[in-house]
């Protein structure tokens, strides 16, 4: 993780969006004064994150690890962290050095703590702060509140919804509701990304793996069920899943034969999210895996 060359910050309680926009402008100017010339704003997206308070620390850790890789504007929405109709803000402009470049590149982070009233319609708060003409990625921390207005509100403005179904208590039960969202918004799942090295290994087992009857996975429920759903949907037939819970994906056994461990280093949470932010459009293979995760 690279450290910012310099970082400007502004905070305010009970603020308006105009004050936040002004703070961004002022911080950018102050940031430029620290360097020889203007910092570059080479944004490729707006990154919106819905971060309930229990995910606050984890979200910042991830963000700090990826600001340099995606120097865009990140807007963190923390619901219920202020009085009813209050909006509190913390705005940062961080400048990162670029190899071989004299100038710096600027990343902007806007944390908005929303009172419960404000949290009902977050899109109306986010909309004025979006960088126009660029895609909007919405990272949703924790379980998706299926059927609630807040989810509809934010997915309505996002081009891509990024989740981690490992953060859910009952991922298999919720995959059915998740599948209903696929026609509304493109979905990325960090748990799915974690299965990639294992999917590569399984694909290399072709054609034997094509006759697979039973898949035994030692790992979290979400990736285990996604792997099984993937095999079922790609092979278009039943595959039994034997799931042994563990904190990380530790082993995969196909019809009694254990696969070698992937040689790729596991990615950090920042790298995992970064990878998802480089994906555009619907991921049909994932969608089919989600739909098949509930079928034996």
């Amino acid at each position, binding site marked *: 993780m690279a450290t910012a060359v310099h970082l400007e910050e502004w905070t305010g309680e009970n603020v308006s969006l105009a004050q936040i926009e002004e703070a961004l402008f002022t911080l950018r100017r102050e940031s430029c004064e620290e360097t020889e010339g203007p910092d570059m704003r080479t944004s490729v997206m707006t990154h919106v994150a819905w971060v309930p308070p229990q995910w606050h620390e984890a979200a910042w850790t991830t963000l700090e690890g990826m600001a340099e890789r995606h120097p865009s504007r990140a807007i963190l929405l923390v619901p219920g962290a202020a009085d009813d109709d209050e909006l509190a803000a913390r705005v940062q402009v961080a400048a990162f050095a670029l190899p*071989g*470049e004299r100038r710096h590149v600027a990343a902007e982070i806007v944390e908005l703590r929303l009172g419960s009233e404000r949290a009902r319609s977050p899109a109306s708060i986010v909309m004025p702060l979006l960088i126009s003409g660029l895609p909007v990625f919405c990272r949703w921390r924790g379980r998706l509140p299926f059927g609630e207005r807040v989810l509809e509100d934010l997915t309505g403005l996002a081009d891509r919804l990024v989740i981690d179904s490992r953060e859910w208590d009952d991922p298999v039960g919720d995959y059915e509701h998740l599948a209903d969202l696929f026609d509304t918004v493109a979905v990325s799942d960090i748990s799915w990304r974690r299965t990639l090295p294992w999917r590569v290994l399984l*694909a290399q087992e*072709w054609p034997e793996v*094509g006759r697979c009857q039973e898949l035994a996975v030692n790992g979290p429920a979400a990736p285990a069920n996604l792997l099984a759903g993937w095999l079922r949907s*790609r092979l278009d037939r039943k595959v039994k899943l034997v799931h042994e819970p563990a904190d990380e994906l530790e082993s995969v056994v196909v019809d009694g034969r254990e696969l070698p461990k992937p040689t790729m280093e596991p990615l950090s949470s920042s790298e995992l999210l970064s990878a998802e932010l480089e994906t555009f459009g619907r*991921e049909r293979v*994932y969608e089919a895996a989600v739909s098949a995760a509930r079928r034996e």
Partner: protein
Amino acid sequence: MATTQENPLLEGLPLAQTPEPCLLVVFGASGDLTKRKIFPALYALAFRRLLPEKFAILGAARSDWSDDDFRGHMEAAVREFGRDEFREDVWDRLAEATSYRSLDFADDEAEEELTRYLQHVDEESGTQGNRVYYLAVPPAAMPTLVEDIGKRRAAQGWTRLIIEKPFGYDQASARELNELIWKHFTEDEVFRIDHYLGKETVQNMAALRFANGIFEPIWNRQFIDHVQITVAESIGIEGRANYYERAGAIRDIFQNHMLQLVALTAMEPPSDFTADSVRNEKVKVLKSIHTPGPKHVVRGEYGRGYVEGIEVPGYREEPGVDPTSMTETYVAAKLYVDNWRWADTPFYVRTGKRLPRRETTIAIEFKRAPHPPFAEAAAEELRPNLLIVHVQPDEGVSLAIGAKVPGLGMKLRTVHMDFVYGGAFQVEMPEAYERLLLDAMRGDATLFTRADEVDEQWAIVDSIVAAWKRDRPAFPNYAAGTWGPPSAEDLLRRDGRSWRHH
């Protein structure tokens, strides 16, 4: 590699991009190119797991090295020139797949032995007779190698031939080499490298032109005043006197890199991005380039001067260079592409050694706004719109536009809107050789030069060189650290224009 129809698990996986099992044979394996470019590129591909699972490398050269010597030299090269951190596990996998044979290319018996050894490696590594031969050897060694490889090609699997530049010395020698190649190989088995085509920014020229609706309608003689292409180097010949004395700037850069940049800038949109569609369009441009007359070409040779504050010797003082050498280290030319799109639009091109800085740019200067409604004094700082593609360094694109200076009056200035690769995409750009090696293994020739392109390039160069035989300029005619001879400035001044100097 099975297709996604044969193996449905491949869909959406990066594995679908991996080449088929193959054996890469590098001739000239003890040379500088293998050390600086080929092995660091192979390591970068291994690092990203882009090489096939069943893969082997055989280095062949005259140096009397063992397998371990070769691996040791290549490990040092990867550590020094690789763009990724050095990881033992990645290197160990690559080293395990690597072997070396000391070989005299002219010795038939040694070639026979090599053939038997390649069959052995095929069997051991499961590479199925698929071979990529990389000919990183001097031009003189090329015909013998092509003949030997052709005669001894594997009975099964596919064969691909990667040929480094220079491809021939002139049109006649290039044709001769092509004839020899075609005796044993089909054109789609031949991959002639011009590493400029592997650069991200050069490929971005196609993205800029053909993925953006705003540029193509104005990419023509009606809106563009002229084009300037610069391939400038601040370094000298770096001990390569033997090669450079024979090649000069015209064969070293102009014949290949420079004419490729002209072709990519001027070509019509291809119907798709397949090898033949792209190369067909480039050939049309090369065929349309009007042979420049002697007044439209300037050559130069650098004398003693200062580069980056250090006094550097003149070309004739470089080790190994003839003290009366007439080899050009600088070429500038005014080219015309005789077609509907570009008629009467000059393409000013220049390349040289020991220029003030390293820079490769394509600058498109648009015509001035027909009637700016501002007072003359307000717009005196305003220059025509300029679109600059920075190939290297500071890879990216910038557009110069006129903007109002903040304040009460109406004062206009030129400002730059920049897209810098390193700023928008926080990933390191792959080295050209990584892309080209991988493409050759996959059999994708889009970024390689086809025989008819080479032929047209040499036709242009031969006509320029023929005119040079009629006079003997007073060399050296520019000091190291300057932008070339005064006559290069005159080339544009006669047209009421000037070279971009920054």
